[in-house]
């Protein structure tokens, strides 16, 4: 028991100075640059990273304040939504009419895959259904031999 307690004390004394350092290393938990692609400039209608307006600058100030406060990306997103509403997020919400932004690309890819698959299948079917060429007749065979002989004579 004493040995265990002594070991615990040693561990605590070793980890004691490390813990604040670890916490400090994890702060800031995100950057302004990372957040600028996740947040919209509402007036400009583009992500903050592409925006150049007074409103965008105010949003940047707010984000910098939250980053400096050591908020995580999701905490900053939540704070921005609380200030500006859900339209501040660059990623559309997965409900209401905005869900089409998620569904349409998937539906379009599935439709394109189905279309391409259908075309390939129909081409393959058409090829396999095509009639086999008629066998070469004796006269055709003779004509071919004659032509080849003439060709080789001409080459010599």
């Amino acid at each position, binding site marked *: 028991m004493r040995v265990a307690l002594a070991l615990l004390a040693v561990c605590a004394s070793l980890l004691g100075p490390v813990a604040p350092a670890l916490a400090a290393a994890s702060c800031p938990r995100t950057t302004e640059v990372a957040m600028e692609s996740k947040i919209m400039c509402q007036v400009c209608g583009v992500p903050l990273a592409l925006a150049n307006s007074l409103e965008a*600058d105010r949003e940047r100030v707010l984000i910098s304040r939250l980053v400096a406060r050591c908020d995580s990306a999701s905490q900053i997103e939540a704070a921005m939504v609380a200030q500006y509403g859900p*339209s501040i997020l660059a990623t559309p919400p997965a409900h209401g009419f905005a869900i089409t932004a998620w569904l349409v690309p998937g539906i379009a890819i599935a439709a394109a895959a189905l279309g391409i698959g259908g075309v390939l299948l129909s081409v393959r079917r058409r090829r396999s259904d095509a009639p086999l060429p008629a066998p070469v007749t004796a006269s055709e065979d003779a004509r071919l031999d004659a032509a080849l002989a003439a060709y080789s004579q001409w080459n010599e």
Partner: protein
Amino acid sequence: VLLATAGVLVLLALGLAANHPSRGLDQAIAEGRRAAAPNVSLPSLTTGRIYTLRAFRGRVVVLNLWASWCEPCRAEAPVLERWSRQIAAHGGSVVGVDTFDASSDARSFMRQLHLTYRMLRDPSGVVKASFGVTGFPESFVIDRSGRVAAIARGPVDDAFMRSAVLPLLGA
């Protein structure tokens, strides 16, 4: 495939229509008509209490859309403050709608300029969409029966307030 393409095209058309600012109110005024103001409900910037535009029926309302980051809004606000005091006794109200703004910035704007008229908060731009607002500031003069009588697409000045608001007050 054809159905999917048609669906995508319909969605694109719907998206374009939704993002295009409505000019119905301007057209009505140009034709000498007064269109009913869209009824919006917004929280107060200072108390959080919800107000509807319909609640102002019976008063002449100057609905002013602004933001703390908007420089022309800063220049216009003292004019609105002065007119708000002048028209209050004659049944007129100036109602500010802070749009696309951080509430702390908006409140500090109010304090700096000593603004006392009612301020509502529209962080996601509901009023902007329903009134067809394209920039800041913009003001809508709404008569006592809730119809839009005049629009200022830009900062208001004394001349606009005299010509658009005073006749409605009967002052």
